[in-house]
């Protein structure tokens, strides 16, 4: 088992004829992901890597039975593309582009909630269920099927965590990139709860960073979970008030310092880790 995506997912790529769309589409297919086609308005009828291209998501759903979409489009088109997909019946969307206007994300979120769809991103590296499906831009080399789930704001951190789990023999059930933008399609709390319901996931590693509120918000969920949660937060030594990289990672006054996040998560029952090496040590202690 896995969460959100597996080998049966029927995946389309919105923006399949663009540079990034094409490049990563080929990688996803090579991994064994069940890519059934893609969209590119005005280019319906074409084929990309033997997969049919349609003008609209509606056609992909009608003719291919698509249920999942990976979006590779410029940020200003993301709102319309996600709403199109959600209304056509797509249930899971991966929004790779970054810098999506905040109010657009609020609209996308409402649409997703209304139709019972799940969106991850923007600015996500994607999601991978090792051995089954890889949606987005994550490098295959880090991942191997196993028993620990991961959820992270950052792509590079996801790779390092998975790399560590792979090296130490734990492997991963599913690795989810929440995304680095300030307003995200899904929250830590929601993804953690999906892992809680997955029988194969024996522990979850969540990695967050300074800024924002999604880490603190996960505390109530962690308290309710039986599956152990390991937590790492980047930016313990970040200079206060400075913007570091991710749009989301700015310390807003007293809100969201890394240490405060880590303390809140620990008091909710999460096991704090400082470096990636602490992850296998903690898992061993927990008997995972």
């Amino acid at each position, binding site marked *: 088992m896995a969460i959100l995506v597996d080998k049966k997912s029927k995946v389309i790529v919105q923006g399949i004829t663009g540079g*990034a769309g094409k490049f990563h589409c080929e*990688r996803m297919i090579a991994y064994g992901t069940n890519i059934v086609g893609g969209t590119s308005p005005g280019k319906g009828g074409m084929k990309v890597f033997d997969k049919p291209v349609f003008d609209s998501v509606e056609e992909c759903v009608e003719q291919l039975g698509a249920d999942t979409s990976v979006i590779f489009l410029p*940020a*200003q088109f993301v709102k319309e593309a996600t709403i199109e997909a959600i209304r056509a019946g797509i249930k899971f969307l991966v929004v790779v582009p*970054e*810098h*999506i*206007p*905040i*109010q*657009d994300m*609020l*609209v996308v*979120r*409402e649409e997703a909630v209304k139709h019972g769809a799940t969106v991850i991103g923007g600015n996500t*590296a994607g999601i991978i269920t090792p051995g089954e499906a890889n949606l987005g*831009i*994550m*490098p295959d*080399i*880090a991942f191997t099927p196993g028993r620990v789930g991961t959820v*992270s*704001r*950052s*792509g*590079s*951190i996801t*790779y*390092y965590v998975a*790399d*560590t789990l792979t090296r130490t023999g734990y492997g991963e059930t599913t690795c989810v990139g929440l995304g*680095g933008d*300030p*307003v995200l399609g899904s*929250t830590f709390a929601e993804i953690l709860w999906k892992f809680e319901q997955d029988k194969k996931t024996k522990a979850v590693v969540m*990695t967050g*960073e*300074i800024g924002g*509120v*999604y880490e603190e918000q996960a505390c109530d969920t962690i308290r309710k979970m039986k599956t152990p949660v390991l937590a*790492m937060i*980047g*930016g*313990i*030594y*970040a*200079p206060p008030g*400075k*913007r*570091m*990289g*991710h*749009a989301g*990672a700015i310390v807003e006054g*007293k809100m969201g310092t*890394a240490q405060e996040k880590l303390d809140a998560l620990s008091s909710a029952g999460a096991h704090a880790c*400082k*470096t*990636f*090496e602490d992850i296998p040590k903690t898992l061993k202690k927990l008997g995972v």
Partner: protein
Amino acid sequence: MRLYEFEGKRLFKQFNIPTPEGRLAATPDEVYDIVKTAGPSVLKSQVLTGGRGKAGGIKLADGPNEARTYAQELFKLKIKGFPVERLLIEPKLDIAHEYYIGVTIDRANYKIVIIASGEGGVDIEETAVKTPEKIVRKSYSVHEQLYGFDALSISRKIGIPNELSKQGMAIVQNLYKLFKAYDAKMVEINPLVLTKDGKLIAADSRISLDDDALFRHPYLKEQGIEMRHEEGELTPREMKATEWEIPYLDLDGDIGMFPGGAGFGIMGNDFIHYYGGQPANFMDSGGGPTPERLAQMLVLLDENPQVKAIFGARFGGISRCDDFAKGVIMFLKNHGLSKPMVMRMTGNMWEEGVRLFEEAKRENPKLMEKIEFHGIETPIEEISKRAVELARIEGRR
């Protein structure tokens, strides 16, 4: 993107939110001329940071001579690293009461929130913590309009007098409209002043816009409201990085950080601290940097005399290892590396990246001699420890 007070007030005006008649001045003489005709005035430093009142950035002047003297002081002032380059001169208000009205985004709940209080002019966060009962808070979905009755209720709850409730309602509604129309992250009127002669006036503005939505607001550009630097004063290296569009911060340590994406950029700095080292900088290569950009990043580190050793990491996702290798090789060929560097590279296209390094080494066996190169077999913790060690060895020389 934060706006200056005077820019925010221009937007207020556009949305029929009453503001004092203000004028901008960039020299003490201009200030003199303005106050000479305007009479008793407030001189307000225009800086992109809060707390300017406490820092002495606001002065009351009764006449032009006094105004000029104050202006001379103010133009020498730096508030939290921001030099005062312009003053907004406004007529002095006779204040009867101060309110607070703000609109922002509740990211955790995906709502737009109006926050209002009968106690304005002070730090609203402090009020929210100490006396939460004095704060009115209402949430709306992004699709919702703010109805008049709702705005009126907010106006009434914060104690705006009944005879002004219609104006209060309009100000709340218009502020909400402005927030949505310009893709704001936050708009604040603090304080909204009730004058002794019974008028409501927005005495200050604080607006922060969503950088990622600026493309759809050409009117702002027409008004001269464009992307600006918001971090106070820059070091020369930070200035160079800004020119090259590299997110870069100087820090106090001696390890040059070349860490790949933003996520590990932030965490990598923690790792260096955990192993007893001090990073000399923070840097984010962004998603999919070009080889040229990567080479520039290394130039920044190599030319920093504070840097004793360089930590390099690439876990290729959207930023591929082949591009990474091209960037490093470009730097080595065109500039050269003068410091020891430990580096780990893996991820998308790593085979191609390794091939490029091998090829470059065949061409010039000395090219990579200062680099300790690792692949996926070495945990990143080992790389971090080694960087700390290299900086220590180099520091002893």
